[in-house]
């Protein structure tokens, strides 16, 4: 099985194809609805707000060659103030479709982890950057939390625990490539095949 560690190179991304199983390693960042809206409205389409300069600079560095994980985890705060991930499966990615292409190109993301797949604009961005869409197993929250070895930092906790941007170090996080950098989408293939079958069932 392929193993990849962040930061990931363009060559590594181009070598991946739809259907490949991959174990991800290294530091990644969670981000879902509020985070994507914030990144596009306050970092990409406008100058970073004065009070957010450290956050913006950190994010640029963390995401260059990096990965965003669409995830709203259950997190426990330990007695010493540090955090542990308790449950951390993927959330539905398609809600970020309006933001994702911009976020991929601005930060030079190499991958997005989520579930359910994304649309044509993200597929195009994956081809251009290059980047890929990694599908995690929806609902496998305890198992994925076990692969999170360290919560390095948290940003935007004011968005609430699920929406905050958690910087985590993962080991052998299991995913499947369902959109590659060669404009292939497993989601499109399954949609078309099942559409044909549906037509025959309700003709």
């Amino acid at each position, binding site marked *: 099985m392929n193993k990849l560690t962040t930061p990931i190179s363009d060559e590594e991304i181009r070598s991946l194809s739809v*259907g490949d*199983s991959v174990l991800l390693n290294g530091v990644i960042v969670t981000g879902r609805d*509020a985070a994507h809206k914030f990144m596009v409205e306050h970092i990409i389409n406008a100058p970073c707000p004065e009070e957010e300069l450290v956050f913006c600079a950190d994010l640029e560095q963390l995401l260059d060659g990096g990965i965003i994980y669409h*995830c*709203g*985890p*259950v*997190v*426990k705060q330990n007695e010493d103030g540090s955090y542990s991930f*308790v*449950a*951390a*499966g993927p*959330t*539905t990615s*398609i809600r970020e479709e309006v933001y994702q292409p911009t976020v991929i190109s601005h930060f030079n993301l190499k991958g997005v982890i989520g*579930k*359910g*797949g994304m649309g044509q604009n993200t597929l195009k961005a994956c081809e251009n950057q290059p980047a890929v869409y990694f*599908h995690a*197993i*929806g*609902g*496998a*929250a*305890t*198992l*994925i*939390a*076990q692969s999170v070895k360290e919560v390095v930092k948290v940003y935007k906790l004011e968005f*609430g*625990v*699920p*929406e905050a941007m958690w910087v985590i170090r993962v080991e052998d996080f*299991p995913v*499947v490539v*369902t959109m590659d950098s060669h404009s292939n989408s*497993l*989601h499109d*293939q*399954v*949609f078309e*095949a*099942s*559409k044909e*079958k*549906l037509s025959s*069932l*309700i003709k």
Partner: protein
Amino acid sequence: MTNLNQIDLTDQFIELVRQAATNLPRDMENALSKAKENEDHGSAADGALGTILLNVNMAREHSTPICQDTGTPIFEVYYPLGVSTRALADQIRQAVSVSTENSYLRPNAVDSLTGKNSGNNVGEDFPTIHFHEWDENQIHVDLLLKGGGCENVSTQYKLPDGNLGAGRDLEGVRRVVLDAVHQAQGRGCGPAVLGVAIGGDRGSSYLKSKQQLFRELEDENENEELAALENQIYEEANELGIGPMGFGGKTTVLGVKIGAQHRLPASYFVSVAYMCWANRRAHMDVSIENGALEVNYE
């Protein structure tokens, strides 16, 4: 303690929530195991089901949530005459708050106007609680944790539907339910259990469709026509080949449960409650036996 209306069930509700969030019902687990055997060895579907089953075991062992989206907690409470539903509702709200502190639940109640998360799963009409008075001298509680991803692909049809050739009959119901499964693709975290309601108004129809999800997979519909339709849709939905997580494969749904209710002459609604593979239901029976509290979660 001799009376059901004098007891505080907060601790029992906390245990009920823990069970639902961390312990997948056996019928679901068995169905997932069978599905894995049926998929092609080494396929993405096989791998997805393997990961799911591993996760189910780990969650049970560690007493941590099966899925991080612990969803909307939906409580159906059956109670005898004389028990205060207001007191029970307070205990349930207290229990979900403590369960959130214990990390059995993710803070999931967001103020729709301000966007602020209440932090403890308590909010306006949150969690969902329905009370039903009954003749038994015990309290029975069903709990379902309904995740947001699969809720977003749940849907409602108004028949007739010209595009799908769906008229106001069971053939029409079959057509729209198959369309709903196709529309959902992998976004609802299949393999799914489908709760289907025929009739009612828009609100009661959605409610009825969700209530079907409390039925166990082996449960056979008492109505022969609906039982036959459940089996037919089950077979045909799996022919669609969408597979676990939408990766393609033989397992798209694990069960179909259909209920019907009266409707207005003008309306014919069909609601489809799509439930992810993490069909987290739990229940408890509470009674007083010889003056002592008896609680059963089996």
